């Protein structure tokens, strides 16, 4: 072997130091009996090692960005144009909180939330499952000093990032189409990022439970599709029958639409804090559950 062993050995103690200092405090644990199995529901142990995992996905994506971007934004834009201008011509205007809003504006402000949801879900289901189960990428990563918690956290943020990127491009197209020029749309971006985080976390729960790709079809058809129709993306929620309306009130996509739609109209959202709290609660709870289930999957 021709490696410069001197250079390598001097480099290694300093470069591997962060991992050592992180856990060395527990080095004096009792020999003989290993610690009992830690609880699956223990709090997430996140370190900065999530960043190289996120960066890995970024590097793959940069190679495939153009085709994947076309796929990600073409469908939502086609839906917007077809429904917005097609059905919009029939409907004209929608009554929203007592004022009349053009249907294309109503639809655009809802469908961008739906796109954020779909992009995050797709990445955290199909793509994360490929990396976890098919390519064994996660196994390889965990041969290095990286915790499963960091891997799951990185996957969640990655799916949210990809979702935000997709939303931003769609928002750009909407601006170019002149659907809205509200300066408050700047606030929509961080909110769409939050929507990505929420739906990435929920999707990772199903990723942790999946035996194969087929399982995700249930998630899309039994959860995401009803969510889409119950959250006021395509039509106002006032039209929903009683029970549906109650369910709708507490759906994460409803909260997202209620927060982002007013921004398109250059208005502040009503009950903004409540909707933010709903999204935050979904995000935290879903990530925690996803992590616990993923830990269970990897325990043996």
């Amino acid at each position, binding site marked *: *072997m021709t490696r410069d062993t001197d250079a390598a050995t001097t480099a*290694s103690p300093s470069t591997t130091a962060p991992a050592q200092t*992180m856990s060395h405090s527990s*080095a004096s644990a009792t*020999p*003989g009996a*290993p610690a009992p199995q830690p609880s699956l529901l223990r709090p997430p142990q996140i370190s900065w090692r999530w960043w190289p995992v996120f960066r890995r996905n970024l590097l793959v994506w940069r190679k495939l960005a153009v085709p994947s971007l076309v796929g990600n934004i073409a469908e939502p834009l086609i839906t917007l144009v077809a429904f917005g201008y097609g059905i919009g011509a029939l409907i004209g205007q929608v009554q929203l909180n007592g004022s009349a809003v053009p249907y294309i504006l109503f639809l655009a402000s809802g469908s961008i939330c739906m796109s954020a949801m779909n992009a995050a879900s797709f990445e955290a289901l199909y793509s994360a499952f490929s990396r976890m189960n098919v390519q064994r990428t996660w196994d*390889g990563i965990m*041969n290095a000093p990286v915790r499963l918690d960091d891997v799951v956290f990185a996957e969640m943020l990655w799916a949210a990032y990809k979702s935000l990127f997709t939303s931003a491009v769609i928002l750009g197209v909407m601006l170019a189409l002149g659907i809205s020029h509200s300066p408050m749309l700047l606030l929509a971006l961080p909110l769409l990022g939050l929507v990505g985080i929420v739906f990435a976390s929920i999707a990772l729960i199903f990723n942790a439970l999946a035996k194969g790709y087929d399982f995700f079809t249930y998630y899309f058809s039994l959860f995401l599709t009803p969510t889409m129709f119950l959250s006021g993306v395509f039509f106002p929620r006032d039209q929903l029958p009683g029970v549906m309306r109650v369910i709708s009130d507490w759906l994460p996509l409803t909260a997202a639409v209620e927060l982002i739609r007013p921004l398109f109209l250059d208005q502040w959202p009503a009950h903004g804090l409540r909707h933010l709290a709903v999204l935050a609660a979904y995000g935290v709870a879903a990530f925690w559950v996803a992590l616990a289930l993923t830990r269970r999957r990897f*325990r043996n």
Partner: protein
Amino acid sequence: MIQPLFEVVDLTKRYGGNTVVSQLSFSIAPGECLGVIGPNGAGKTTTIRMCLGLTSPDSGRISYFPNGAATGRASLNMPQDALAIKAQLGIVSQFDSLDPDFSCAENLLVFGRYFGLKDAVIKERIPKLLEFAALTHKADAKLGELSGGMKRRLSLARALVNDPQLLLLDEPTTGLDPQARHLMWERLQRLVQQGKSILLTTHFMDEAERLCNRLLVLDHGKKMTEGTPRALIAQNLEPDVVEVYGAGALALVDSPLKALAARTEVSGETVFFYTADAKALLAALAEHPELRTLHRPANLEDLFLKLTGRQIREAA
């Protein structure tokens, strides 16, 4: 005795009512190559997974002693210090987990980042690692363009990116052709010469004999025996083996010839005579020209089959 680099004491792992690893103890000295051999399902991979903290043992201790006793540092223990231990390990698992979307060089770069290494440090190491893996000409090749042997060597190079003291190799040459296997052996021998320690599991007895200073035979999760390859053969087996096969060979088992060997075994249509002195036996066999005979020294495979039996492990 030298302070070991890595030590496993009384390791036990059960899945349900099934004990997969039972009271297993072993240690690896700095610069030593320890081979773990055993049939499928013997507990080799489970042991490695416990050594990595990926599976937690039901009882027992796994300790790593950085830089030996010289520094006087306390040991690092699994699973509490998993990250600190893994920072010093290089791992080649049974199945490749290389990134199919990356070139060889990118695979090394991305993996080095998981150790918290700076890009500049990794990029300085990449050409040397590729040269070590005989993949310099494939630096920018995608994974799909590599042969099985190249992928295994890239996995080995990737395991070296953090300049580990100890390598854990789970069946590193399974599925390779003889040329690729010999190249892998030559690289592993170089690593041992450089002072790296290796824990190796394998199904190939010639590989175990060639590479390992010491062997541990594992079956049903228990240690059957442990020692240098030569010593194990000398302790457990007669030095000479005469294999006899052909029409009527099986009848020899109950013939007077049996007395000329210390031990006989039958496998399929072949009779194995184990003996300290084959002269008389060979002379007697010369009177059976219809039989084919093979006279050879006892080897590790004989030892392995003696200790673990000849029957196929269906459960594996």
